[in-house]
């Protein structure tokens, strides 16, 4: 319980910082980077629910991200649809495709599932890349509109976009938080620990896994749709495998299967890679070893390592106090025995 409260506090502080961030800096570039990081975080939360909490590592995540982005882009540019209608439709399209792909891919398990979804992700990329007449192929799609006005609020400045994305990020965190801390969340964790055991205690693993898969693709689609209208240009490379591995790296560094992991990992890595921009692709020579060490020594990432550290310390303290109590009791008995003798 104390852990949970602590995690909650960390998130509360981060939210507060996120809200005042545009006032601290007037630099549009920084706001741009931060907005982009928030979009990634939304996608990472989707991945976390599936890979972190349910134990199914999907490598098709960037594919669903791209489906969300392209759905929105095509509906707004080619079909000239109202922005928010297109937005909702994009989420529905991604989730329905997620449902269909989930139905098939969840027949596999563990690394077979990872390999299968890797292929699915690559096929999605290929379809986008080669379907020239619909997606524009390698040229991509341009002229995607900014998010439509909601009443008097317009979304054509970096700051207003920042707040829009922040709103969706907070929505994502709230939903994921509530799912994780509910009986459904416990069900998913039980599936991750042992699917056989979960099934013997009466959990319909097939249905639960499918539900998580669809939610996970929903968040990937949400992130994709926001990305498309924020960058306003998309190419097939947003569905490429490297994006999946970027998202996975954010998740692993931050802490897979933890609530604060996606935020910590994504923001940290996005900023670090911005700072190391001058190194170009040689950045990976720094990331690689750090990631390897992290996986070896802190398999649950920064956040998980912190939680474990706290839990251990708490347990030590408890043992210590138990020990003290015992010693006090023993010494009390001894003194009473001694006094009895004397008496």
């Amino acid at each position, binding site marked *: 319980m104390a852990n949970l409260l602590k995690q909650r506090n960390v998130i509360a502080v981060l939210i507060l910082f996120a809200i005042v961030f545009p006032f601290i800096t007037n630099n549009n570039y920084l706001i741009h980077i931060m907005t982009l990081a928030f979009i990634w975080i939304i996608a990472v939360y989707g991945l976390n629910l599936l890979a972190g909490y349910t134990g199914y590592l999907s490598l098709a995540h960037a594919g669903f991200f791209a489906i969300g982005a392209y759905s929105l882009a095509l509906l707004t540019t080619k079909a000239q649809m109202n922005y928010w209608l297109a937005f909702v439709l994009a989420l529905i399209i991604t989730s329905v495709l997620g449902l269909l792909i989930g139905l098939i891919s969840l027949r596999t398990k563990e690394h077979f599932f990872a390999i299968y979804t890797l292929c699915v992700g690559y096929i999605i990329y290929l379809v986008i890349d080669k379907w020239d007449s619909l997606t524009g192929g390698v040229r991509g799609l341009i002229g995607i509109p900014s998010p439509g006005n909601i009443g008097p609020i317009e979304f054509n400045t970096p700051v207003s976009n920042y707040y829009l994305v922040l709103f969706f990020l907070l929505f994502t965190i709230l939903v994921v938080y509530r*799912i994780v801390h*509910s009986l459904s969340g416990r069900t998913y964790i039980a599936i991750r620990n042992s699917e056989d055991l979960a*099934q*013997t*205690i009466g*959990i319909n693993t097939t249905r639960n896994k499918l539900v998580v898969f669809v939610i996970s693709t929903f968040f990937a689609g949400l992130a994709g749709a926001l990305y498309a209208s924020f960058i306003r240009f998309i190419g097939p490379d947003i569905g490429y495998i490297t994006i999946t591995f970027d998202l996975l790296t954010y998740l692993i560094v931050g802490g897979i299967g933890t609530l604060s992991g996606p935020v910590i990992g994504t923001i940290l890595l996005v900023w670090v890679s911005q700072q190391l921009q001058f190194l170009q692709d040689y950045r990976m020579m720094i990331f690689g070893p750090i990631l390897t060490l992290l996986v070896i020594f802190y398999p649950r990432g920064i956040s998980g390592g912190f939680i474990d550290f706290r839990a251990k310390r708490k*347990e030590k303290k408890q043992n210590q106090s138990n020990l003290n109590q015992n010693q006090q009791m023993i010494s009390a008995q001894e003194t009473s025995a001694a006094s009895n003798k004397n008496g």
Partner: protein
Amino acid sequence: MFLETKNLTKKFGGNTAVNNVDFTIEQGKINAIIGPNGAGKSTFFNLVSGFHPPTSGQVIFKGKDITHLPSNKIAELGVARTFQTTNLFDQATVLDNVIVGHRLRTKSNLLDAILRTKRLKQEEKQCRDKAIEVLEFVGLTDVAYKLAGSLSQEEKKRVAFALGLATSPEIIFLDEPAAGVNPDETEGLAELMEKMVRNGITVCLIEHKMSMIMKLADKIMVLSYGEKIAEGTPEEIQNNEAVIKAYLGGSAIA
């Protein structure tokens, strides 16, 4: 008939793991299945609990044919089981690990979770109360808030029992519950099984520790090479020539 199998057979390719086994489990008793390694005991459990579909034969629970039900549906009907090793979530507390055991008796779904409905809160409390109740039953109240990773082997066995009991079963299948624990602890686990029976839960277990089985069981079935070679009370089994032959590989009269 409480739970019975009729001509239950399971073939893995050319290998017949369970061959034509008829067995009735008596309600309110401790039923045991023994047999040499590879006799098909665990496979028999897997068939009854719906883990593997049998090649032929039937499993009937309280007059209902459950042969082809998936294991989660069988659990809902009141049949629990434990595994030889229980994978717990080591980074969570014992209580957190057990709470999910009562999930099958609740109805709240994802929408309840996202909207934090009254039903969810009620059912969460219901699951927590049940977990506390079964942890007390198995004698683990003291470690309820400890991390599951820090438990001893015997405590882990008790958590596995608790998880099974949290599903509110009428019958519980225990797969080698006393494997890897010392004699004193074995005694404690045996007492716990007797307590389950006193509380109206039928027990069926696989075990290798003969002294324990002979003291504990009301009824024993002996499997060897997938076939039932004997069935009866501990006394009958101890004097059964086929059983002695299967275990010692020779004749009863040396």
